């Protein structure tokens, strides 16, 4: 079942939760941008029940993850970020198990692992943040993450 909003289109597997919404001020502040500078979209995908109230980087959701759970956040940055060194990587990334580490989590939780990629695609700047419920199971879970990311379509700015 596909969902689409703000030029982001993804095929969400059966049983997964997903939402595409506009960025909240807290995220913008935490990433060092001026509040109100952008209200770019954010997409959340998870193979577990997403609570209605949660942070842009998954706070409130990652705490209830089990070992086989996956949380994906795709956060867009404003047009002023396009061309900056942080977003030099071009194209939608595919995640690699070797990129995951427990210390890469926004909030470190026992057993979990995370990674993030900053990139530019279709002249739009993004951060892809992925949390796995178990670092030990990262190889099997990464395959599921990439299967979903393969269906992601982003319209040009």
């Amino acid at each position: 079942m596909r969902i689409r909003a703000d030029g982001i289109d993804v095929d969400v597997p059966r049983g997964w939760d997903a939402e595409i919404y506009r960025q909240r001020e807290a995220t913008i502040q935490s990433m060092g941008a001026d509040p109100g500078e952008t209200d770019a979209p954010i997409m959340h995908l998870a193979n577990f029940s997403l609570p209605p109230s949660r942070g842009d980087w998954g706070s409130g959701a990652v705490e209830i993850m089990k070992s086989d759970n996956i949380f994906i956040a795709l956060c867009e940055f404003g047009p002023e970020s396009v061309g900056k060194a942080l977003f030099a990587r071009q194209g939608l990334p595919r995640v690699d198990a070797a990129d995951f580490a427990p210390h890469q989590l926004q909030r470190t939780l026992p057993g979990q692992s995370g990674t993030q990629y900053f990139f530019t695609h279709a002249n739009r700047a993004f951060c892809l943040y992925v949390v796995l419920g178990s670092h030990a199971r990262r190889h099997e879970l990464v395959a599921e993450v990439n299967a979903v990311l393969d269906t992601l379509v982003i319209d040009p700015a």
Partner: protein
Amino acid sequence: MTVVLVTMGLAIVLLAALVIGLLRSHGEILRALHQLGVNLDEPHDTHDHSFTNTPKLRPVSDSAPPDIAGTTLKGSAVKVGVAGVEHRTLLAFLSSTCSACLNLWNELKSDPTAGLNDRLVVVVKGPEAESPSRLRDLAHPEVTVVQSTEAWEEYQVPVSPYFVYVDGPTGDILGEGSIPTWDQVRSVIVQAAADRAVVTQAMASGVDPELRADIELRAAGITPGHPSLYPTSMPIEGLEDEEDES
């Protein structure tokens, strides 16, 4: 002359007493109907507060209950997984207008879980039929609310409020029906889960298929002598479809 006046006076007093009695009776009837969730101001909102805990034994496949896709009350695109998940989900199809629904919304304000251990997802019709701002006033922020007219159609929801209880791992609908209070919802959910456990246990232990059918019928509330086992007439082809459309 005096006799006539007295007689007329008595007649007036008797008639007044009769009218007062009728008005009181009318008020009591209206109050009783309101408690049952019937609002006579909404002639189209017919409530059939029955719940059928009929296990529909279907594997997770294309015929499994669909996930819910629509928009949040803030207008975001959203999709909620229902089948193929580890937990059970109670889908509560509510509206912002029916009187029974308003009671349910109000109770959710004080307890967003409705006292349930299962996932609760409130499904309302899309923004073309329901005002998101009105719904934001009614809904607790911790309750998952999806606006989706498509989901109402896919689940063939006949009235509001209407509940569908789905077993995530199997994709089976454990029960569905119109229920006016959370107390009754909790009660029928416990019953549906217990009935389901009986059926599952029987199947796991390799019970004879004929006996299994009996167990499933009992779980569905169909016991020996149940009227549905003795139809008085043959079903008329096409009648059911016509009723659904009306």
